[in-house]
């Protein structure tokens, strides 16, 4: 088995596995009950895209793609940090509180909302 045949097989395998991972992450983003789940899915999507770019760099031979992967990781980090600040500022929105209590199946709607209000007041202090 020659070197190029091994590389061709392994890059094809990596592309298939990464595509499957991309699909699973998109399923979580579509299904995800709350906003932080979707933000986490976005973070994972960026990580998988970086892997994709690295595999394409091997397959095509253009080493410039590695710089693009580094820039994409910077953008993904900043996006996640910005979304985290947004979640911190917004608190628990009513519709995601309803979805959350449906997923956790414990608290009633009023009970789920009450600690959120207390948390928000504590955050302002």
């Amino acid at each position: 088995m020659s070197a190029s045949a091994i590389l061709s097989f392994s890059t094809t395998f990596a592309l298939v596995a990464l595509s499957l991972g991309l699909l699973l992450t998109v399923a979580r983003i579509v299904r995800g009950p709350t906003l932080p789940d979707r933000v986490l899915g976005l973070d994972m999507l960026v990580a998988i895209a970086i892997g994709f770019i690295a595999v394409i760099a091997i397959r095509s031979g253009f080493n410039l793609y590695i710089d693009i992967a580094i820039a994409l990781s910077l953008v993904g980090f900043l996006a996640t940090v910005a979304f985290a600040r947004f979640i911190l500022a917004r608190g628990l929105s009513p519709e995601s509180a309803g979805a959350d209590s449906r997923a956790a199946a414990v608290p009633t709607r009023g009970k789920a909302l009450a600690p959120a209000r207390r948390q928000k007041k504590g955050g302002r202090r």
Partner: protein
Amino acid sequence: MSAGPDLLVAIAVSALLVAGSIFSLLAALGILRFPDLYTRMHAASKAGTIGSGLLLLAAGLHALDIAILLRALAGFAFFVLTAPVSAHLLAKAAHQAGYKLTNLSVTDQLPLAKQKSDRL
């Protein structure tokens, strides 16, 4: 025999490729299957980081150029440095906003720490 080192590099690169893509796939599977945000974060920030880091390392090793390899290593190091920071920030923001842990979780130590700091 001139193809010897070439074959070795190809085998190393393809081992890194397979390992990295399997790590990424398992991280995505963990994101889909774990019960709540805080457990999903484990899969995303540990397995996901190692997965794309190994793929970057494979790309750097394949070029057989020290500048490219150093660039890939710098990307890996940057990714390893930033992924825990963003995951911790997201978990802290979600916990402070009031997103609940799953019913399967045994204890939540953050409210206790908060009360202690309020009392001090």
